[in-house]
């Protein structure tokens, strides 16, 4: 249940929520727990909330592993 998935912030809304792109799937994510997150940042998202920033390289590695797992 504590799984969290990395994605890239592609839009920040006025109400402090964001649109995050998870390798093609886009979802609305709350930034309340990570107010420092900015447009273009990679973040780890758990249950609809960004909980930590990630380096782009790390995010891409994790995303490609997850994608492989889902395709299997």
């Amino acid at each position, binding site marked *: *249940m*504590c*799984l*969290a998935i990395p994605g890239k912030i592609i839009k920040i809304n006025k109400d402090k929520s964001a649109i995050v792109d998870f390798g093609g799937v886009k979802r609305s994510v*709350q930034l*309340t*727990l*990570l*107010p420092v997150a900015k447009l273009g940042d990679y973040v*780890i998202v*758990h*249950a*609809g*909330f960004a*909980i*930590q920033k*990630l*380096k782009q390289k*790390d995010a891409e590695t*994790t995303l490609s*592993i997850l994608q492989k797992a889902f395709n299997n």
Partner: protein
Amino acid sequence: MISQLSTQNSKLNIMEVCGTHTMSIARHGLKKLLPPTVNLISGPGCPICVTPVEYIDLAIQLSSINDVIVTTFGDMYNVPGSKSNMAKEHAKGSDIRIVYSSHDSLDIAEYNPKKEVVFLGVGFETTSPTIAATILAAKQRKIENFSVLPMFKVIPPALKEILNIKERKIDAFLLPGHVSTIIGSKPYDFISRDYGIPGVISGFEPQDILNSVDMIIAQIKSNRAKIEIQYKRSVEPSGNKTAQNILKKVYKIVDSNWRGIGKMPKSGMTLNKDFEEFDASKRFKLKVKKAPEPKGCLCGKVLLGLKAPKDCALFGNACTPGDPIGPCMVSSEGTCAAEYKYG
């Protein structure tokens, strides 16, 4: 890297605390990659598995009240209470909705002003801040028909209880990655300081876990005991301060009942005085009735690392993922479910 792993003589018992680790280890067959001297034992870190029977019963009680919509994470849907579960109640006509985020429940409450929306608030420190943030948002947005049935658990005190068990066989901990993203590494310091036991905060990919086991073995070989972070890309020693502040603002620490294990001091969180109005157990004046665990289920001992799923006489016979008896078989992150599927 595997070749660098332990070749010492005696067995090294490492408890992976987190259910997501248990699943990753099972799915990728990591136990087979490790030397026979390394023994991975699952811990109490599946929030669904440790949510008491009474809680499910309360949730069912709520769902039977007219004009109440119960919202929940999907993992809770099939967990057995003493007589029924959410899925069966839903089939019978109760308004029970699975949400991806606690925030979705707020929107449901806004769209249904004449109904009461109750979110089932379970989880560890990864999840509890997201629900705390939702409660803050409910207060800000003045959404009065929203509440939470709280049953939040805190990981470090549970580890302390495990360390205090006389017959425990744990030499090291593989500590949870995303709980630690929130709380940091410091709350675990007592493990190495007071018990002389190493702990490594690990990520969830197979390489992360093997790497972390390697770091544990290096500590043991050089007679060190420290809390180290393998999952540096997500965990800082001080954690996520904003999330910690939100936790402090909304909740207070309480003793908490863990399914199959019992009450552990200071191992839970519930809404504090300032946010009591959002506590569904108070709003609906719910009364908890003691409920027995299913007969023969060893989940409690499994969660403490004292028994393996196959020690349970019901494993694979009376108890399967299709027809589970205990929570360790229901939850996809449960030790029994992982063992059944991949064991």
